[in-house]
Protein backbone atom coordinates (compact mmCIF):
# COMPACT_ATOMS: atom_id res chain seq x y z
CA UNK A 1 0.00 0.00 0.00
CA UNK A 2 1.39 3.38 -0.98
CA UNK A 3 2.03 5.90 1.78
CA UNK A 4 2.71 9.61 2.09
CA UNK A 5 6.11 11.01 2.93
CA UNK A 6 7.77 12.72 5.81
CA UNK A 7 9.29 15.92 4.41
CA UNK A 8 11.48 17.95 6.76
CA UNK A 9 12.09 21.56 5.79
CA UNK A 10 15.44 23.22 6.47
CA UNK A 11 16.58 26.71 5.51
CA UNK A 12 20.12 27.20 4.23
CA UNK A 13 21.15 30.67 3.03
CA UNK A 14 18.00 31.43 1.11
CA UNK A 15 17.43 27.85 -0.02
CA UNK A 16 14.58 25.83 1.45
CA UNK A 17 15.61 22.18 1.53
CA UNK A 18 12.95 19.47 1.41
CA UNK A 19 14.43 16.37 3.05
CA UNK A 20 12.16 13.71 1.54
CA UNK A 21 11.84 10.42 3.40
CA UNK A 22 10.28 7.42 1.67
CA UNK A 23 9.27 6.45 -1.82
CA UNK A 24 7.47 9.01 -3.97
CA UNK A 25 4.14 7.90 -5.43
CA UNK A 26 0.72 9.42 -6.14
CA UNK A 27 0.10 9.10 -2.39
CA UNK A 28 2.90 11.64 -1.85
CA UNK A 29 0.83 14.54 -3.22
CA UNK A 30 -0.53 15.81 0.13
CA UNK A 31 2.94 15.67 1.74
CA UNK A 32 4.51 17.67 -1.10
CA UNK A 33 1.59 20.14 -1.19
CA UNK A 34 1.97 20.73 2.55
CA UNK A 35 5.73 21.17 2.32
CA UNK A 36 5.40 23.52 -0.65
CA UNK A 37 2.79 25.58 1.17
CA UNK A 38 5.10 25.88 4.20
CA UNK A 39 7.99 26.84 1.93
CA UNK A 40 5.85 29.58 0.38
CA UNK A 41 4.97 30.82 3.87
CA UNK A 42 8.73 31.30 4.27
CA UNK A 43 8.88 33.21 0.96
CA UNK A 44 10.90 30.50 -0.75
CA UNK A 45 12.67 31.57 -3.91
CA UNK A 46 14.83 28.48 -4.19
CA UNK A 47 13.86 24.94 -3.22
CA UNK A 48 16.15 21.94 -3.08
CA UNK A 49 14.51 18.50 -3.14
CA UNK A 50 16.76 16.04 -1.36
CA UNK A 51 16.07 12.34 -1.90
CA UNK A 52 17.89 9.25 -0.71
CA UNK A 53 19.85 7.07 -3.14
CA UNK A 54 17.37 4.28 -2.35
CA UNK A 55 14.27 6.42 -2.95
CA UNK A 56 11.91 4.89 -5.48
CA UNK A 57 9.85 7.28 -7.59
CA UNK A 58 7.13 5.71 -9.68
CA UNK A 59 4.99 7.22 -12.44
CA UNK A 60 2.61 8.75 -9.87
CA UNK A 61 5.57 10.24 -8.02
CA UNK A 62 6.89 11.75 -11.24
CA UNK A 63 3.49 13.38 -11.69
CA UNK A 64 3.68 14.82 -8.15
CA UNK A 65 7.09 16.31 -8.97
CA UNK A 66 5.82 17.73 -12.27
CA UNK A 67 2.97 19.36 -10.36
CA UNK A 68 5.46 20.98 -7.97
CA UNK A 69 7.68 22.09 -10.85
CA UNK A 70 4.72 23.64 -12.69
CA UNK A 71 3.72 25.60 -9.58
CA UNK A 72 7.25 26.77 -8.83
CA UNK A 73 7.84 27.70 -12.46
CA UNK A 74 4.79 29.96 -12.40
CA UNK A 75 6.08 31.65 -9.25
CA UNK A 76 9.59 32.02 -10.68
CA UNK A 77 11.10 29.79 -8.01
CA UNK A 78 14.26 27.81 -8.76
CA UNK A 79 14.20 24.08 -8.04
CA UNK A 80 17.18 21.81 -7.49
CA UNK A 81 17.19 18.05 -7.01
CA UNK A 82 19.82 15.95 -5.27
CA UNK A 83 20.31 12.44 -3.93
CA UNK A 84 18.63 10.53 -6.76
CA UNK A 85 20.20 7.47 -8.34
CA UNK A 86 21.55 7.45 -11.90
CA UNK A 87 18.51 5.40 -12.85
CA UNK A 88 16.18 8.27 -11.93
CA UNK A 89 18.53 10.88 -13.30
CA UNK A 90 18.06 9.23 -16.71
CA UNK A 91 14.28 9.02 -16.30
CA UNK A 92 14.04 12.68 -15.18
CA UNK A 93 15.97 13.69 -18.28
CA UNK A 94 13.72 11.61 -20.53
CA UNK A 95 10.46 12.98 -19.10
CA UNK A 96 11.72 16.57 -19.23
CA UNK A 97 12.04 17.30 -15.50
CA UNK A 98 15.59 18.55 -16.09
CA UNK A 99 14.21 21.39 -18.21
CA UNK A 100 12.70 22.83 -15.05
CA UNK A 101 15.07 21.67 -12.33
CA UNK A 102 18.81 21.25 -12.06
CA UNK A 103 20.09 17.94 -10.74
CA UNK A 104 23.10 17.99 -8.43
CA UNK A 105 25.42 15.18 -7.38
CA UNK A 106 25.55 16.26 -3.75
CA UNK A 107 23.60 18.36 -1.32
CA UNK A 108 26.69 20.51 -0.62
CA UNK A 109 27.19 21.22 -4.30
CA UNK A 110 23.50 22.09 -4.66
CA UNK A 111 23.42 24.42 -1.67
CA UNK A 112 26.61 26.17 -2.72
CA UNK A 113 25.39 26.62 -6.28
CA UNK A 114 21.84 27.64 -5.41
CA UNK A 115 22.91 30.02 -2.62
CA UNK A 116 25.10 31.72 -5.17
CA UNK A 117 22.10 32.70 -7.25
CA UNK A 118 22.12 29.64 -9.50
CA UNK A 119 19.71 26.72 -9.56
CA UNK A 120 17.94 27.27 -12.84
CA UNK A 121 18.59 24.73 -15.56
CA UNK A 122 20.69 26.09 -18.35
CA UNK A 123 18.66 24.40 -21.13
Amino acid at each position, binding site marked *: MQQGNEIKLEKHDGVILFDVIGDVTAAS*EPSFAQAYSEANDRDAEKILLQFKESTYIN*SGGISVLIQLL*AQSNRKGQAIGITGISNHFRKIFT*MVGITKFARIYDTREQALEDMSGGQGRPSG
Partner: protein
Amino acid sequence: MDFPTCYLLQGLSEEKLKRFAAITHETVMSKEQWIYHENDRAERVFILKTGIVELVTLVDSYLELPVSIIRSPGDCFGTSSLIEPHLYSLSARCQEDGTVLAVDRYDLRKLMDEDREIGCVIMTNLAEHLLSRLKETRQELKLHFKNLLKFMHS
Protein backbone atom coordinates in the same frame (compact mmCIF):
# COMPACT_ATOMS: atom_id res chain seq x y z
CA MET B 1 8.87 -23.03 8.32
CA ASP B 2 11.38 -20.95 6.38
CA PHE B 3 8.98 -19.24 4.03
CA PRO B 4 8.60 -15.51 3.46
CA THR B 5 5.29 -13.90 4.21
CA CYS B 6 3.32 -13.04 1.10
CA TYR B 7 0.01 -11.19 0.77
CA LEU B 8 -1.34 -13.98 -1.46
CA LEU B 9 -0.88 -16.50 1.32
CA GLN B 10 -2.23 -14.50 4.26
CA GLY B 11 -4.71 -16.60 6.21
CA LEU B 12 -3.39 -20.01 5.14
CA SER B 13 -2.61 -22.51 7.90
CA GLU B 14 0.89 -23.93 8.35
CA GLU B 15 -0.23 -27.15 6.72
CA LYS B 16 -1.60 -25.33 3.65
CA LEU B 17 1.57 -23.24 3.44
CA LYS B 18 3.58 -26.45 3.34
CA ARG B 19 1.49 -27.66 0.40
CA PHE B 20 2.09 -24.36 -1.36
CA ALA B 21 5.82 -24.45 -0.58
CA ALA B 22 6.05 -27.86 -2.20
CA ILE B 23 5.27 -26.38 -5.64
CA THR B 24 7.73 -23.47 -5.43
CA HIS B 25 11.10 -23.46 -7.15
CA GLU B 26 13.89 -21.25 -5.91
CA THR B 27 15.46 -19.31 -8.76
CA VAL B 28 18.54 -17.13 -8.67
CA MET B 29 18.40 -13.82 -10.49
CA SER B 30 21.16 -11.40 -11.32
CA LYS B 31 21.25 -7.65 -11.61
CA GLU B 32 19.82 -6.28 -14.89
CA GLN B 33 18.27 -9.64 -15.75
CA TRP B 34 14.77 -9.41 -17.23
CA ILE B 35 12.46 -11.84 -15.47
CA TYR B 36 9.66 -11.25 -17.95
CA HIS B 37 8.43 -8.64 -20.38
CA GLU B 38 5.06 -6.95 -20.70
CA ASN B 39 2.65 -9.03 -22.82
CA ASP B 40 4.75 -12.19 -22.46
CA ARG B 41 2.74 -15.32 -21.66
CA ALA B 42 2.37 -15.27 -17.86
CA GLU B 43 3.35 -18.75 -16.79
CA ARG B 44 4.74 -18.12 -13.31
CA VAL B 45 4.02 -16.06 -10.22
CA PHE B 46 7.01 -14.98 -8.14
CA ILE B 47 7.67 -14.34 -4.47
CA LEU B 48 10.76 -12.35 -3.57
CA LYS B 49 13.19 -13.92 -1.11
CA THR B 50 16.17 -11.59 -1.51
CA GLY B 51 17.24 -8.83 -3.86
CA ILE B 52 15.25 -6.11 -5.59
CA VAL B 53 12.97 -6.27 -8.63
CA GLU B 54 11.58 -3.27 -10.51
CA LEU B 55 8.31 -3.35 -12.43
CA VAL B 56 8.17 -1.03 -15.42
CA THR B 57 6.01 -0.31 -18.44
CA LEU B 58 7.26 0.83 -21.81
CA VAL B 59 5.64 4.15 -22.71
CA ASP B 60 7.60 4.80 -25.84
CA SER B 61 10.41 3.03 -27.59
CA TYR B 62 12.88 4.94 -25.41
CA LEU B 63 10.99 5.49 -22.16
CA GLU B 64 10.47 2.92 -19.44
CA LEU B 65 8.10 4.26 -16.83
CA PRO B 66 8.78 3.03 -13.29
CA VAL B 67 5.67 1.49 -11.76
CA SER B 68 6.68 -0.36 -8.63
CA ILE B 69 9.61 -1.69 -6.66
CA ILE B 70 9.65 -5.14 -5.06
CA ARG B 71 12.18 -5.21 -2.23
CA SER B 72 10.55 -6.70 0.84
CA PRO B 73 10.90 -10.46 1.23
CA GLY B 74 7.48 -11.98 0.59
CA ASP B 75 6.41 -9.36 -1.97
CA CYS B 76 4.69 -11.03 -4.94
CA PHE B 77 4.77 -10.15 -8.59
CA GLY B 78 3.71 -11.75 -11.84
CA THR B 79 0.19 -12.33 -10.53
CA SER B 80 -1.19 -11.88 -14.09
CA SER B 81 -0.33 -15.57 -14.36
CA LEU B 82 -3.29 -16.32 -12.07
CA ILE B 83 -5.84 -14.58 -14.29
CA GLU B 84 -6.96 -14.88 -17.90
CA PRO B 85 -5.61 -14.03 -20.46
CA HIS B 86 -2.36 -14.95 -18.67
CA LEU B 87 -0.28 -12.12 -20.10
CA TYR B 88 2.08 -10.09 -17.94
CA SER B 89 0.83 -6.50 -17.66
CA LEU B 90 4.28 -5.10 -16.78
CA SER B 91 7.93 -5.96 -17.29
CA ALA B 92 10.05 -7.15 -14.36
CA ARG B 93 13.78 -6.54 -14.14
CA CYS B 94 16.14 -7.53 -11.39
CA GLN B 95 17.84 -4.48 -9.86
CA GLU B 96 19.94 -6.29 -7.30
CA ASP B 97 21.13 -9.92 -7.26
CA GLY B 98 18.80 -12.16 -5.33
CA THR B 99 16.48 -15.14 -5.28
CA VAL B 100 12.80 -15.63 -5.96
CA LEU B 101 10.38 -18.46 -5.39
CA ALA B 102 8.71 -19.20 -8.69
CA VAL B 103 5.40 -21.03 -8.93
CA ASP B 104 4.23 -22.47 -12.20
CA ARG B 105 0.63 -21.42 -12.84
CA TYR B 106 -0.42 -24.95 -13.85
CA ASP B 107 0.94 -26.36 -10.59
CA LEU B 108 -0.85 -23.66 -8.63
CA ARG B 109 -4.09 -24.21 -10.54
CA LYS B 110 -3.87 -27.93 -9.77
CA LEU B 111 -3.25 -27.23 -6.08
CA MET B 112 -6.18 -24.79 -5.93
CA ASP B 113 -8.45 -27.32 -7.65
CA GLU B 114 -7.41 -30.04 -5.22
CA ASP B 115 -7.69 -27.81 -2.16
CA ARG B 116 -10.50 -25.29 -2.63
CA GLU B 117 -9.67 -23.52 0.65
CA ILE B 118 -6.21 -22.65 -0.66
CA GLY B 119 -7.78 -21.47 -3.91
CA CYS B 120 -10.36 -19.34 -2.13
CA VAL B 121 -7.80 -17.69 0.17
CA ILE B 122 -5.32 -16.95 -2.62
CA MET B 123 -7.90 -15.54 -5.03
CA THR B 124 -9.56 -13.44 -2.28
CA ASN B 125 -6.17 -12.00 -1.29
CA LEU B 126 -5.40 -11.32 -4.94
CA ALA B 127 -8.75 -9.53 -5.44
CA GLU B 128 -8.11 -7.32 -2.37
CA HIS B 129 -4.65 -6.47 -3.65
CA LEU B 130 -5.89 -5.65 -7.14
CA LEU B 131 -8.63 -3.42 -5.69
CA SER B 132 -5.97 -1.55 -3.75
CA ARG B 133 -3.88 -1.18 -6.93
CA LEU B 134 -6.97 0.08 -8.77
CA LYS B 135 -7.45 2.79 -6.12
CA GLU B 136 -3.81 3.82 -6.44
CA THR B 137 -4.10 3.96 -10.23
CA ARG B 138 -7.22 6.14 -9.98
CA GLN B 139 -5.38 8.47 -7.60
CA GLU B 140 -2.54 8.69 -10.11
CA LEU B 141 -4.93 9.34 -12.98
CA LYS B 142 -6.47 12.24 -11.02
CA LEU B 143 -2.98 13.69 -10.60
CA HIS B 144 -2.29 13.47 -14.32
CA PHE B 145 -5.61 15.20 -15.05
CA LYS B 146 -4.85 17.95 -12.54
CA ASN B 147 -1.51 18.54 -14.25
CA LEU B 148 -3.15 18.49 -17.66
CA LEU B 149 -5.84 20.98 -16.57
CA LYS B 150 -3.21 23.32 -15.13
CA PHE B 151 -1.28 23.07 -18.37
CA MET B 152 -4.40 23.74 -20.47
CA HIS B 153 -5.36 26.80 -18.39
CA SER B 154 -1.88 28.28 -18.04
